[in-house]
């Protein structure tokens, strides 16, 4: 609980604050006020307005106020809607982990590898498929790194191979086998029409076909990649925006050590 909220609670304003029933906050606790915007494929007439209201209601709004609507084209109308959300959620059982990561730093990671694995970790990275965005994978791998955090190239105990962009999955897998890589890092930025999902799934299939899926720690990342999506696609982990090399390295060194113990 935040300091201010605790204070408010003490002086009685917050009688209604309840972790079991969290609701959006407009300007007073539990007012449930939210704003949404969307476009409907309908001309700007009363029919569109009614459709917008009904949809808002279905989304769980009451006191629906269509504050703005305008025609985008003869057949489309844009809406901005305010309303009160009827839903609430229970987060009393969710443990609070701060967004600040609890990753090890570079020295700790190198030390951890020396102590537990006693050899260099081989990391192979690329932006695969037709995607040509490299800034993300470079942020994780290049010497310079990102936001003042060095990339994996800088780590003494990590040997890195960054293949760049537009790398075919077949080529990536071949390289992984040749290098006997421990960790594979895949970056995907373009997500329109699910192109990343197809491409990432295809990589898993190829790795399985070659019988090396279990021999590598397989990680994907990119602005629109979530942990959940990564797991669903058969990856060991996924990292989104504002990731730094330490976050990724902490994950894979721990994973490698754990796997070694299980062998």
């Amino acid at each position, binding site marked *: 609980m935040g300091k201010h909220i605790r204070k408010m609670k003490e002086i009685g304003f917050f009688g209604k604050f309840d972790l079991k029933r969290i609701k959006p906050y407009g300007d007073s606790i539990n007012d449930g006020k939210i704003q949404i915007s969307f476009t409907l494929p309908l001309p700007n007439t009363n029919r569109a307005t009614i459709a917008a209201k009904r949809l808002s209601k279905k989304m769980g709004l009451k006191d629906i106020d269509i504050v703005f609507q305008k025609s985008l084209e003869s057949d489309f109308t844009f809406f901005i809607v305010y309303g009160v959300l009827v839903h609430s959620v229970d987060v009393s059982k969710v443990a609070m982990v701060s967004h600040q990561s609890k990753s090890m730093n570079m020295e700790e990671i190198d030390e951890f590898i020396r102590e537990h694995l006693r050899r260099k970790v081989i990391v192979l990275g690329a932006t695969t498929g037709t995607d040509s965005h490299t800034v993300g994978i470079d942020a994780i791998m290049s010497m310079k790194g990102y936001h003042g955090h060095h990339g994996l190239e800088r780590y003494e105990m990590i040997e890195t191979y960054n293949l760049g962009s537009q790398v075919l999955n077949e080529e990536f897998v071949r390289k992984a086998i040749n290098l006997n890589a421990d960790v594979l890092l895949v970056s995907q930025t*373009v997500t329109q029409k699910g192109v990343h999902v197809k491409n990432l799934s295809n990589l898993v299939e190829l790795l399985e076909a070659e019988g090396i899926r279990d021999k590598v720690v397989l990680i994907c990342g990119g602005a629109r990649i979530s942990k959940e999506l990564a797991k669903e696609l058969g990856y060991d982990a996924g990292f989104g925006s504002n990731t730094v090399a330490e976050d990724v390295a902490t994950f894979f060194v721990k994973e490698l050590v754990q796997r070694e113990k299980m062998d």
Partner: protein
Amino acid sequence: MKRQNKLNLDVSLIKQARAKARIIAHDMQEFINQYTTTTIERTICRLLGIDGVSKEGIPLPNIVVSNIEVDIGAAVFLGNAIIQTGFNPQEIAEKIAQKKLDLKKLPMGDINGIKKTIISLANEGAEKIRANREIRTKLIQTYGDKEGPLLYVIVATGNIYEDIIQANSAARKGADIIAVIRSTGQSLMDYVPYGATTQGFGGTYATQENFRLMRKALDEVGGELGKYIRLCNYCSGLCMPEIAAMGALERLDVMLNDALYGILFRDINMQRTIIDQHFSRMINGYSGVIINTGEDNYIKTVDAVEQGFTVLTSQLMNEQFALLAGIPEEQMGIGHAFEMDPSIRNGFLYELAQAQLSREIFPNAPLKYMPPTRYMTGDIFMGCVQNALFNIITKLTDQRICLLGMLTEAIHTPFMSDRAIAIDIAQYIFNNLHSISEELSFKPDGIINQRATQTLQKADELLSIIKEQGLFQTLENGTFAGIKRSKNGGKGLEGVYRKGNIYLNPFIEIFMERGVA
């Protein structure tokens, strides 16, 4: 309206820098003149009227070019075949596809006769382009052209029919230029897909049929609105000149055409790109297309404050390459962008300096100004303000092609509503600031002028270095966008051929005869 020079730039320094850029481009031109590429030969096929695909779906221009000796060229082989068989180029291509004809097996006739035949056919092809150019000029005359910044928005649904709906909406809202972004991956395809397409990723495939469909739609909505709506696409990747030819045949008005983009951002071989861009730009020049150069992209991967001078350096080279391809200044949409870190104190002043610098160094060019992208985040509300600052500079510095920023830049390719919001905001700003540029001048020794002078000086120094070491070496060193490429690396080098003795590209003469307008 007369534009004022506000930056107090050293005119002799501008001249000096430009002269160096000219030498760099001319050195490169000597190299270019000796080579052709597979895509240039396929372009010649297209301009001679070959279109369509084989039963297996392979484009006929590709089929023809795999049936010739590239160093002699498609024109000579086709000219010979026309004389020997009496068929026209399209029929010849179809026969090759059906394995009923083998160009290499035909006896080679008298080269002068071949030349005569093919040059007259080439003139017919060029005539179609000229006619399109005239239609454009007439339409713009009839409707009248807009003054001030042209509002440029992109559509990128992947489905040409969906794109048309989005383009229609944007045009009705006030967009002046519609750009259809290409699908990811098209740059690396060594052929141009065929027909109307509905499945692209991050964009829609550039095909001649897609061009035609969009052109028709924009002419229709333009007719209703009483204005000419310009259409834009991309001559980049392994098929630069073919896409330029398709654009010429379907009356596109604006085409991205950068001498270095493919090398830096798609890892296409540098020799291939430099050769391809030349013919590609020649076609753009002849068809009256405004080219857009891609300097804005450099500062997406390196810091815009530190590396602002590389933008100017490249602009000066792009200008010279364009002149060598017969493109007049009025068709040079030299590019630059608003990409500085928003947390910088006085960042707006630096952006203003850079934009005004482009304006004064290229006074007759329809400059293309790109909005913030890399510092756009998921905070769409803040994003609207970032875009507003960009719009203000667009107006203050009298840019011509204003690529509207999208509030959702960091998230997805634009929704219909994103575009409408962007157009409303831009129109509000441009109208409110209508005469601002005439009202404002800069402090003679102030931050803006100093920054502009410094940038010019650094660009001039870099041009000296490039002039000494040559452009290829510069690219190998990673001077632009911090990206290193090797002369023989990247994709597409296998498509580069040294021209043989009897090589002929009949279009070069036709396109260049027009001279620099």
